């Protein structure tokens, strides 16, 4: 499939535009907080504009081919090129990263976490955006690696500076896990390079050459990439950094982490590991499938044990990413389509859940489930939104979450011909049980936080107000329902959850040709 090179400046513009905003912001003093917010938002909107232009210019009839393709010399000494392109697999995630950044910017308008300093916070966010978008367009392993790593430091600082109580521990854990994973990934990339004749790091080239690698070697190379990507996903047993990072990160950090960063790992499997080394992928698929299902059950049980709302949502990510990985491990058209859909759906839904959690935390100054109750009474709108997201997250048909989970489970019924049918059917049954657990923990969470009477702790001073002793209760002053910034930031996500839930074909149509091309090798 030859790539198409029309309008190929679009991708580079969309990826690097945020850095232009960063440069401008660097020149403006820190105390111009409003100006910084404006510039950051305008930059993010401009980037989104480029993203929309990309959507418009994308040739949907050719979505199996790489479009806007650029292939120029970059580091000639190691035969690595600046190779970028977009196809049906990467388009949804590329665009989602831009949308999420804009929404997070809007949310940040009046939600800059302590200790403040919007300049630094927003600059880090824009750098993150470049790293995320770049990872999804890179078609060269070295370029991919560089973009993959660009997100590391901004996220580290976002957690470590603007995070919660345990932020230093959480950020260090995040950093070390990711660093360890990427070291192995880089080694695997290098091995791939040498085993294909040290010609090129370009992914399309490696896809044609990788099949010739000796199977034993390919197994080892795949193992390196597997660990590198699995840490990022995160798959059981590499997931332990995630609950800490999510819980301690500021709301914006959690949203970006859940919506985009975790997907860098799954995307790596689909873009690199599987197409380049199909022979090893077949051997590793059962392992991936088993770990994925362990992740589903383990994540769900973990959720049931949590007392902190944010930590619960973090564990639910482990479970949801388990469904995505299960879909990938089947190596079928349906499974990988489901995985890609699940990536976007999880980004929308869990991103939204973290937004809700952030707003609840801001109002009650706690996320301890025991202390929260009666959300629907005190803040009906926020309560309903939380309920909506919980329903979407547990995979209610008609909302986006369903189309990630259900086909993933279904695809395990008939995995790729080389795989063991019995094993995958067993996995299917266990994964289906996982959805029951998901319903349990989400509904239980919702029941405990939203139903019932509000905790007297947060209302007990009601009569104090009536006697005019205002101002002695700071908690109470914070108790307002969804405000306008939150509405603006959340509405697009809520609409998208419904739209993709009702009409999933919108996304499947874009992805399917590329996925069909990808799995062709397993059906010959």
């Amino acid at each position, binding site marked *: 499939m030859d790539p198409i090179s029309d309008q190929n400046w679009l991708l580079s513009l969309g990826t690097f535009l945020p850095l232009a905003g960063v440069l401008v912001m660097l020149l403006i003093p820190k105390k111009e907080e409003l100006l910084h917010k404006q510039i950051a938002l305008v930059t993010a909107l401009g980037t989104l504009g480029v993203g929309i232009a990309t959507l418009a210019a994308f040739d949907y009839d050719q979505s199996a081919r790489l479009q806007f393709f650029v292939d120029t010399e970059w580091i*000639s*000494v190691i035969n690595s090129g600046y190779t970028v392109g977009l196809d049906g697999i990467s388009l949804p995630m590329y665009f989602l990263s831009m949308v999420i950044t804009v929404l997070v910017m809007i949310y940040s308008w009046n939600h800059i976490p302590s200790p403040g300093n919007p300049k630094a916070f927003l600059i880090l966010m824009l750098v993150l955006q470049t790293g995320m978008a770049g990872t999804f367009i890179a078609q060269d392993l070295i370029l991919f690696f*560089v973009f993959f790593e*660009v997100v*590391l*430091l901004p996220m580290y600082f976002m957690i470590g500076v603007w995070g919660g109580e345990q932020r*230093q521990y959480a950020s*260090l854990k995040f*950093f070390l896990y990711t660093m360890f994973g990427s070291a192995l990934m880089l*080694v695997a990339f290098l091995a791939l390079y040498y085993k294909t004749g040290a010609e090129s790091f370009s992914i399309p080239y490696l896809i044609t050459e990788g099949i010739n690698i000796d199977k034993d070697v390919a197994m080892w190379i795949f193992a390196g990439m597997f660990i590198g990507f699995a840490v990022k996903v995160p798959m059981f047993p590499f997931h332990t950094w995630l609950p800490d990072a999510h819980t301690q990160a500021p709301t914006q950090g959690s949203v970006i982490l859940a919506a985009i960063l975790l997907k860098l790992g799954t995307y790596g499997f689909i873009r690199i590991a599987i197409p380049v080394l199909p022979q090893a992928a077949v051997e590793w698929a059962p392992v991936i499938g088993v770990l994925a299902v362990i992740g589903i059950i383990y994540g769900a049980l973990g959720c049931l044990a949590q007392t902190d709302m944010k930590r619960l949502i973090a564990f639910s990510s482990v479970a949801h990413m388990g469904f995505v990985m299960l879909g990938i491990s089947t190596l079928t058209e349906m499974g990988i389509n489901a995985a890609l859909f699940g990536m976007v759906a999880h980004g929308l839904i869990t991103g939204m859940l973290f937004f809700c959690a952030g707003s609840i935390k801001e109002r009650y100054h706690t996320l301890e489930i025991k202390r929260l109750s009666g959300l629907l009474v005190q803040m009906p709108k926020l309560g309903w939104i939380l309920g909506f997201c919980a329903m979407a997250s547990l995979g209610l048909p008609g909302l986006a979450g369903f189309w990630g989970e259900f086909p993933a489970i279904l695809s395990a019924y008939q995995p790729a011909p080389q795989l063991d049918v019995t094993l995958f059917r067993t996995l299917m049954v266990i994964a289906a049980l996982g959805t029951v657990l998901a319903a349990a923990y989400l509904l239980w969470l919702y029941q405990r936080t939203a139903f019932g009477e509000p905790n007297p702790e947060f209302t007990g001073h009601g009569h104090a107000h009536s006697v005019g002793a205002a101002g002695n209760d700071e908690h109470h002053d914070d108790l307002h329902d969804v405000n306008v910034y939150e509405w603006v930031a959340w509405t697009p996500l809520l609409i998208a959850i419904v739209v993709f839930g009702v009409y999933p074909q919108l996304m499947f149509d874009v992805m399917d040709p590329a996925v069909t091309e990808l799995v062709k090798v397993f059906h010959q």
Partner: protein
Amino acid sequence: MIASLLAVDFTAPTVDYHALAPEIVLAAGLCIVLLVDLFVDERQRWITSTLAGFTLLGALIPVVTLAVIGDDTRYPLSGESLTGRYVVDEYALILKALFLLAGYVVVLMSADEIERGRYYQGEYYVLLLTSILGMVMMASSRDLISIFVALEFLSIPAYMLAAWNKRNSKGNEAGMKYYLLGVFASAIMLYGMSLLYGVTGTTLLSEIGPAITASGEFSGVHALAVAFIVVGFAFKVSAVPFHQWAPDVYEGAPTPITAFLSVASKAAGFVALTTLVFVAFPRADDVYQPFIFVLAAASMTIGNLLALRQTNIVRMFAYSSISQGGFILMPLTVAGVDGAGESALKAVVVYLVVYAATNLGAFAVIIAVARKTRSGEISSYGGLFSYAPALGVLMTIFLASLAGIPPLGGWFAKFGAFKAVLDAGTGWGYAIAIIAAINTVIAAAYYITVMREIWMKPVPDGDATPIRTPSSIQAALVITCGATIVLGVLPDLVGRFGDLADLTGALGR
């Protein structure tokens, strides 16, 4: 008798003045600085630092014109027995540019620091320029004698500079230690060189190469000679186990000189070692390969482990530079393997350039911060980001580059080193790659400790007055930070230098 000596035909060498221009400009410049210093008033001593800076930039001009004109190798001094002993090729030019720019940044960093000391400003810059002249000569030397002369030329002023804080016992200790160990190393090296001359009958590197195995067998004397020379340079580049002087010297010397020693002077040692390995010892890899393997592995591991325990930032950087030195040595372990020499040489050159930019930048931040905190403790960096965000971010960039995090220069330097040893595909290569991979993660731990102080810890004594950074240090920071980022994003800028054919082919290997 005298008459017979005089009667020997002396044919004056043909001098290519253009090729020799950088050295001439430097030599003239340092004389001018010395003279001007005699006649200017005490209050106008800033003139000397300005002159020194201009001298270095002036010397850079011919380097650039030579690089632009062409890629054919030039012999600044050619004549009957001179051709090939002093060479200007792309390899020499990129390194000359590196030394001159590093020197310029050190001058920028020194201006304020030395002015406040109020003594011997002129001499300081004269010594600095002399040392840089030695380094510039080193880049071109392809002969045992010129290598040795260049080495002494660059070392002796450095001994004096290390002892610059003469009223401070640590300064005296630094100078003395550096001097004694330096001389010791020179003596060992010279002994090795004399052995080499004795068995090969020549001092020209390109003739030593073939001669070393001419007799078919590799004798004990050959091995001894190569080993002594490598050990001598191991002292110069402070490779473990010959590193003990480095932390004390770095701590005692004025900080700009520490930066100079840890970057430029170290790089000069590597340059000489690289030239020797590639040109003189290409067939002696049985001897130097295990040697350099041990040096590299020990340097990176022990340097890292000791750096983890440091509480003083300069000492931490001393050990970090030992460990980084191990990474620079790493590609040389496979220099003799067919097909890997090319990438090994490139890796060394790229690493030297990137490391110079990054480490100088880090020291510029250390100088700027120490102006306020008057402390070298790592804990004094607490909360730096909150009151001096620019310095905090710059230090983060430099530390991240040293840790090898893309897209900063350090990642490509490390990548190149890994690629070189993997290119070789030998057991030695894989072994050192694994050791280096583990060390990359260990190193990240102490670099990130400093980042945590800067970003996440409170200001130690609550004193959050902003830091005023002198404009010369600002300039140094802009240059080094720009280079660190640009080299990471567009590594091809230096990647094309250091072609093996340049270094060895022209010499008829």
